[in-house]
């Protein structure tokens, strides 16, 4: 999956009430910038093929 620009304002406006987070106007630009970076990072991870039986590693055991 390649990165596609998305409407970060819409994401903030949808999730903030769900999470009961207040987003002050002066916080918005920073949150948007971080969401865009996260979107690009997610696109990189999604390029990695995962098998259906892939197990997560929430607690890493070496």
């Amino acid at each position, binding site marked *: 999956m390649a990165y596609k620009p998305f409407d970060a304002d819409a994401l903030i406006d949808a999730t903030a009430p769900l999470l009961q987070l207040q987003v002050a106007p002066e916080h918005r630009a*920073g949150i948007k910038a971080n969401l865009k*970076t996260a979107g690009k990072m997610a696109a990189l991870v999604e390029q990695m093929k*995962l098998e259906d039986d*892939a197990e997560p590693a929430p607690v*890493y055991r*070496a």
Partner: protein
Amino acid sequence: MKASATAAEIAGDVKAGRIKARAVIEAALKRIDRHNPMLGAFTEVTAERALETADRVDAKLAEGGDPGPLAGVPFAVKNLYDIRGLVTRAGSKINRDNAPATSDATLVTRLEAAGAVLVGALNMGEYAYDFTGENAHDGPSRNPHALDRMTGGSSGGSASAVAGGLVPLSLGSDTNGSIRVPASLCGLFGLKPTYGRLSRAHTFPFVSSLDHLGPFARSVEDLALVYDAMQGFDEADPAQSKRVNEPTAARLKHPVPGRRIAVAGDYFTGSTEAQAHVQKVAKALDATKVVTIPDAQAARAAAFLITMAEGAALHLDRLRSRPDDFDPEVRDRLLAGAMLPAVWIERAQKFRRAYRDKVLKLFTEVDVILAPSAPMTAPLIGQKTASFGGVEMPLRPHMGIFTQPISFIGLPVVSVPVWLEDGALPLGVQVIAAPWREDICLRVAHQLEASGTCVAPVARGFAEAEVGSA
């Protein structure tokens, strides 16, 4: 006692009766008093406790007992470690309203059981979400090698205190590079052990999936001594592995053959400045092999996402109730982290296992992989952007580009300090081994120290500061 004395030298002198532990600690407290206003390394000094602990060490020696391998050695810890009677602030303003800790962090207890003496708590980036060593509430920790420059973070005070000769040893934490980046920028040896090796009990967390604790020192022997003293299972950390102690200090002189040491290619060659430092180390080790750590960019991305999301989950209530009391840069990243789709995080965790399997295969061919600890030497305090591969990028997240793909799967690393010329700023190189092979990282670091390739001096202007004597 000189500011440049190593822990091993101090313990040797104390045990031989050449100096009292109390005198060592009094000298350390004087150095802290004199230099900390310049360095911003300590946020709290536990002078009374330290002198009492030192007196117990001296009393034990007077009775003919052995106080342990770190007898009378002063050390300090990042202020996310619990210290009995102090509030664990974790670099934040918000946590200062918490009750004082009722016990010490497990690793503090272990070091004091080995004879070491806690002298205080150290500055850090807020909630450890930082690579700069700047703190919005306490001010920046400063790099003793250039006071206008960053220490790196988030264990910035831990690096400043050791490079400034205030203490020979300190402890920090490393989730994505927070020991390795400041060790790199301040010219120190830093150890990030295997994930699950050391107990994290009674420290303030950040990202449970990725949090590690570890030490800073100016000699590899010291790093091994302090690491050995901290090993051992502790059921209070649910992520710790039940692993027998594997002492390293006595085996430092066993060399690792150059043909079993490789340089990380591709992704890890993105900084010309860092590559020059890696090549100096490779040459000294006679390491000519190059290996590709596969999918490193995706690994860094996955670590980035897991960090945002787990960090946000940890701080969600504080983000709701006190958003304006956070460092704004930390707050905005955490708020964004709360809004990430869950499927991204699940896929990042699944990728983690697949990536681990691929990387561990490399260790059938080699014992050690070398990679930069940071993309550049210490930036100026306050600097917000820097050129990465010719592109101007935000500085703060990019300082961890070479450390994140390694800690993502918990591999053990010693960051070794490299100086290309006299007077230049240092840059670190990661000596990376397979899980549970801290001994190999330390042996290679020792080889590099013995050959003079890597040194970790007290910064000029601080080294001469001899205060107090036997």
